[in-house]
Structures are given as C-alpha cells and as structure tokens.
C-alpha cells in the first residue's frame, strides 16, 4: 500500500482517539502523579541507581572507580589499575552526553571502538569537565563513573552502527507497558538517543521479538544506515531482562520510569540506567498509543500489579503487537 498524499499533521482528536500520550499529559498525569520528587536522585544519579541494583541483586556493569574530586583525576590510571577497556560516564548525565567508551590502548593513547584516540591528558580533561558539571542536569557539580565496558551480544551486531543498542522498558506502577530496542545511527553518532537521531524497534513484551520501528519520529522498518530489517530479532535473555526491570522498578518506588539495559555477550542483560522522563517516540515504534495500556494498569487493583502476577498481565498488554 503506497500513500503518496501523506498528511503533514493530524488533528488533536485523532491523536486522542488513537490513545497517543503527549508530553504535557505525560508530565502532568503520569510523571508528576506517580514519581515523588524526593526520589529523583535515585534515577538522576547513576551511582545511587547502581547501589540500589547491587542491593537487590540486579546485574549492572562492574564499577572500576568513582571519581569525585579533582585530585582523583591525576590518579586515574592507578584507579583503573591499568585496564585498557572501560567506559567513562558522568554520574548525573542525560541523553548519553559525556560518555566515552575505551576499547583498547594504542601506544600511550586510548582508543574508542570507532578508532578515535584519546591521550591521557584528553581523558583528564574530560574527567574534569564531568566533575565541573558540564553534562549534569542543571550544571551541578558531578562525579564520574568508570565502569566495565559491555561487549555487545552477537545478535545485536546486525543492527548496531557505531555504538551499542540498548533496550528500554517503560514501566507503569512497576508493570512493563512497552519496550523497545534503541539503535545508534550515523546521525546519532553512536548514541542510542532517539532525539539525537537514533532509530528504535519495538519489542514484544511477551516474546521479546522486535517489530515496527521509528527514526526521527517517522515509522521505519529497516535500519536507516544499513538497510537491514530491524524486525524479527529476538532480544537475548528477555525474561531475565523483564524480571530485572520489575525488580528495579519495585526498588526505586517510582510509578512511571524507563529502565535502560544493554545485553552483554557473557552476562546477559545489565541495567545501564533508569529514567524518570522516558520519551514518547516508543509509540511510533509500536504504531500504537500508550494511553490504553496506562489506563488499563490504572484500572487494576493493587494486588494485580504486584509480584509474579504481573507476568499474567503482559499478554493482555501486548495485545495486537505483531
């Protein structure tokens, strides 16, 4: 079916009838209503998120070092114990900003997977800028996390361009309502954030199989750079991933969150971070609105959204998903 006369915009009532969740409604009716302001540091600061994961037995990348003072920056090589493969990220960073992935050492320089070279001075500078708060929300003084580099699961390789795809699960009242796998593109420069131009494929809640797709708010079926079909891919360790997402959501005590995973070749899904303001493009990837699912969860009694009974809801939630 080809439709050459695509409309440039649609009417609000059409979106309403389709159950599309808009930003204003997300902020007012879901984030503000379900996420307590005092709990935000649990997701905004990745060191706290990681501590919570540790305490609840949720797999996360190993932390090599947390650099909190400028004095620690010089001792950086000692702190990482001469590791040559690691990731530096700001503890309070957003949208993948300020993350450097080092894959190996080349001479005295460090090299990213894409071959970009960083001298020790470059890394010192980067660590300092992280500490000064350049990447943190609101520009506050931050700390830098140096952690284990995740080795991409081979299943993902086919659709990964210049970066690691991650899996986002959106949970409402601790129940997964939608999931997608976010795919870096050339436009997003290896980062998996949709507003930076990354693509995404929807993930079926029950089967863990990809379908649909979105890039730059448009529906896609193939990877924008490689042309590979992005549907039909099975996320490895899907049940463990969902179980970890629910466990983390329980521990965070926040009602509306997105949890981001990467799937490691050896250890399986590990939590990268949680997000209190997950984006809405996931709806385009699914070709369906979030509202009916959220309303359904809201209509359920408290007991139905606790513990293992949540698994029974997933087929109902996934509904007609391909």
């Amino acid at each position, binding site marked *: 079916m080809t*439709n050459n006369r695509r409309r440039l915009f649609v009417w609000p009532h059409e979106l309403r009838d389709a159950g599309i969740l808009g930003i204003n409604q997300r902020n007012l009716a879901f984030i503000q209503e379900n996420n307590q302001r005092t709990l935000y540091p649990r997701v905004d600061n990745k060191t706290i998120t990681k501590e919570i994961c540790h305490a609840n037995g949720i797999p996360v990348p190993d932390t090599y070092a947390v650099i909190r003072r400028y004095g620690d920056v010089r001792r950086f090589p000692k702190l990482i114990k001469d590791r040559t493969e690691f990731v530096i990220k700001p503890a309070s960073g957003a949208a993948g900003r300020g993350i450097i992935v080092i894959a190996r050492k080349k001479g005295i320089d460090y090299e990213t997977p894409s071959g970009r070279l960083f001298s020790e001075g470059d890394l010192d500078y980067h660590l300092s800028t992280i500490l000064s708060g350049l990447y943190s929300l609101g520009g506050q003084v931050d700390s830098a996390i140096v952690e284990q580099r995740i080795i991409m699961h081979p299943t993902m390789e086919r659709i990964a361009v210049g970066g690691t795809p991650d899996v986002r699960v959106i949970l409402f009242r601790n129940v997964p309502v939608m999931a997608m796998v976010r795919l870096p593109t050339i436009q997003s420069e290896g980062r998996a954030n949709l507003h930076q131009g990354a693509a995404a494929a929807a993930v079926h809640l029950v089967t863990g199989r990809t379908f649909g797709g979105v890039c730059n708010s448009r529906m896609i079926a193939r990877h924008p750079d490689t042309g590979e079909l992005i549907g039909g891919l099975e996320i490895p360790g899907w049940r463990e991933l969902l179980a970890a997402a629910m466990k983390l959501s329980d521990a965070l005590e926040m009602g509306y969150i997105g949890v981001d995973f990467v799937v490691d070749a050896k250890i399986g899904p590990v939590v990268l971070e949680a997000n209190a303001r997950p984006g809405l493009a996931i709806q385009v990837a699914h070709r369906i609105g979030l509202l009916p699912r959220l309303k359904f969860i809201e209509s359920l009694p408290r007991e139905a959204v606790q513990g293992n009974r949540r698994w029974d809801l997933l087929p109902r939630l996934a509904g007609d998903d391909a």
Partner: protein
Amino acid sequence: MNSRSLSNLAIVGFIMLGAVLLGLRYRARREAEIARQDSLWELTYEIRFEATTTPSDPTSGISELRIATPFNTPHVQVLSEDWTNAGLTIERKELLQSGTKEVRLSTTRPGIYAPQADFTLRLSPRANARYGPRLENLSRDDRTFYLRADQKRDIPTNDDKVRKDVQTLSQAATTEWEKIEAAFNLCMEIVTDPEAAGGVKEALANKKHTPAVRARTMVTLCRAMGIPARLVTGFEISQTSNAVPRTWVEVFYNQRWVPFDTESGYRQTLPNDYVPVRRGDGPIVIPLEGTIAPDGGERFSIRVLPPNPLVSKGEAKHPFQIFNLERLPVPMHTVMSLLLLLPFGALITAVIRNVVGVQTFGTFAPALLAMSFIYADPETGLAIFLIVVTVGLVGRWWLERLRLLMVPRLSIILTLVILCVVFSVSTFDFMGLTPSAQAVLLPMVILTILIERFHVTVEEDGLMFALKLTVGTLVVAALCYLVLGWEEVGAWVLTYPEVHFFTIAAFILLGRYAGYRLTELWRFRDLIEPGEPVR
C-alpha cells in the same frame, strides 16, 4: 483536595482578585479624573425691590416676586440652593407647562427688601443622561399655549408682515424641519444693533435688532407656521460680577423641545455651559402687581468655586500610594514598565514551549534578550549582539583546545563578551554612530551561557539540533520583543499592575494544560495514517 480542583480554585481566585482590584483602581482613577474635569460655580441672585400697597386696597395688598431657578441639564447640576430673604414669605412652585421652578417671595408689609439666592452649580464635560432631552407629548392646551400670539411679550403672530414672511418661508420649505431651519436662517440674517427700536415687526422689516428681539422673531415665525415654540432665558456660565441673562429659543419638533440659540447661532445642541432658568416667555424675575423692582434692582453674578476636595486628596501622602506606580519619578517608568512586562514575555515563552512545543536555549533567555533590546535601541543592540555572539563562539571554539575547567572557561567568555560590548560601543562612537549607552546592559551573563550552551549543543547533539534550538530561541525572542516593545501596553500595565493576577491565573491554566502540543500533531502523524514505513 486534589491538585486539579485546587488549581481551578486558584485560577478562579486569582481572576476574581484581579478583577476586584482592577475595578477598584479603575473607579478610584475615574473619580479623581471626574473631580479634575468638573468645576463648581456659584450663581448669585441679588434682588432689591420695593413692596408698595396697591391703590385699590392700601391695607391688605400683597407684593410678590416670582423668581425662576436654574434647571438641571446633562452638563450642569444644581447641587445646592440657599435663600436669604429676611421678612419675606417663601413659596415654591413648579410651573406645569414648562417645568420652570419658581420661588415666590411675598409680603404684605411695604418697604424695601433685598433677598439673595446662592446656587452651587457643577459643570461637567460628561453628559448625565438623566437630565437629557425627554420625549414629550404636548396636550391640546399646551399646544394652544405655545402657539398663542402675545402682544404683551411682543410675539405678534397675527401681524401682516409676519404672515407674509411666513408664507414665503413655507413655500420654499416642504417639511416641518425645513420650515424651522428656514425661520432660524432668516433670524440669523438680522444684524445685531443694540440701539434698534421697536420689536419683531421692525426687526423683520429692517433686518437689524437686538439678540433678544431676534429670539422673539424666531418664536413668532415658528408659531405663525403652526410649530409650538417658546423662549428660554438662562445664563452662560463664566466668571462675571454682572451676568446678563441670555435668551434662546426652543422649538417643539418630533416630540422634543429642540434648542436654537439665535444669539450665537447654535442649533439643536447648546454648549455645555448654558444653563436654562426660565422656560416660557418671560424674564427671570417677574414682579407682580404691587411690587416695583427699581432699575438695576436685580443683579446676577457667577463665580468659580474651589475644586472638589477629592482632587487635592490624591496629593496627600498615604501608604496606599505604594500601589500607585505612576507616582514614581518619570525616569523610573521605563524600567518599571519593562519589568512589569516581563511576565508577559514569560507567558509567551510558556505558550510557545508548552502549547506549541518549540524548544529554546534556556527558559527565560529569549525574553530577557528581547527586554534588553527594547531598553537599548534595537539597531545598536542587534549590531552588538551579532558581534558578541560571533566573537564569543569563535573564542569558545578556540578555548576548547586549552581544556579549562568550566567556571574559568565561562569567565573567559564573559570577559570576551564584556570587552566586545565595550569596544563595539566605542567603535560606533568613533564612527559617529552615537550608540545608546543602554546597549551595555545587554544581559552579558545570559549571552555567555547562551554561547556555552550553543557550543556544547553543537558538540553533543549536532549542528542541526543546535540550529533548531536557535530558531526557536529567536522566534520566542522576536515575539517577546513585539509584545514588550508595545508602549501602550507598558504604560497600561504600569497603571494597572493588578493585571498580573490574571497572568498568574493564565500560568496556572497553562501549567495544567495536558493537551497535545502543536508540534506533536506533526510528530505523531504517522500513527494516524500508518501506510508504509518510510523505509
């Protein structure tokens, strides 16, 4: 109470508070304004007359004086009336046909009396509809009364000359109104001659006479044509120790008494300061039999009174003046109104961000930028802004290589920005372009942070995204510039700062807006008409 009903309550509360305060201020200002416009006058009648005994009954004769008092008109109101009349009996009577209010002073004892009356009048430029011309129905008797010939008062409607003139007038005019106009025009052709003798007949024959006779001529002509007409005697308000009553004409047309001033030429509408005293064909003071008003026995004077105390009250020191911002020295007005306009800038920002869905660099940066452009003159402001941004961005790009910590790096950009502004002003001055020194007040800290944010956004999210934010920022700034630069709005908000209660209500309303943003109508369009994926 949940947040939604609390918000709704707050919206209603703020709107009501704003409306009440706005109403109070509007009323107070209006009262002061009215008090300033109105003027108070005192009209004084000083009358000397001699009461004599009538020849027929020397012992019990009554001497009486009938004195007409001023009417209320839409513009002149009689506030008070005060009679000094030692030894005289006072009686008030409103004449049935004309509505003239008469005061009748009478005595049975012969002698010389000097009664006095003081009227306080308020003259106002606003019309009070209560005293406006009313639709009337003339009874058959009234009609006959206002059509009658009156030899005593020199209204000779039956005179041959008058009849002839009326015939000529009636032939030329078809409608009643044309007849009235023709009569008026004919009277206005009569040249003023204070020495002219005789009456209406002579005036028509010689085409010159006194203004009083001119008015009588008009009444005579109208009555002869079968149109009810009457003389009105009254005053024109102005400071004088010897006010001469003037006489004009009222013609009954279309169920209304329509005034014509044959002395000055006004027709249909008289100046605001005309106050009628006696309607009907007579002077203001009519002595009855047995009463002799000696020559110059009546003297009218009008003087202006000090203004209403309300006007001067506004000048007194009172804590409530804190809420009157117009009281501030004029040089402060620009800054104050600009400050008061800033919430409107924030309102625009909120609408653009939450309802339209356009993103900008910083939340209030565009509004503040717009504000500084208004305060400086726009040309200098824009030129310096462009120089600062160019130099700042180049400097920031170069600074990246030095790898400095954030605060020192920002400080360098700030220094650069300041140097740019200062030397741009100096350069403009050197070139004789006389820049406004206010351009120096560009929000330099905001510019510094904008430069840093732009640079970081280009690095992190790509040039396209940074340009998108730039366009959004410029759009909001331009809108803010248009609204904040509106001088009438600025002056208005300085007068009525209470309007910001409405602004707060609008903010609450916007803050509870859960509908789609305009950009989402585009963003989610694929979900409504799925069709094939783009690739």
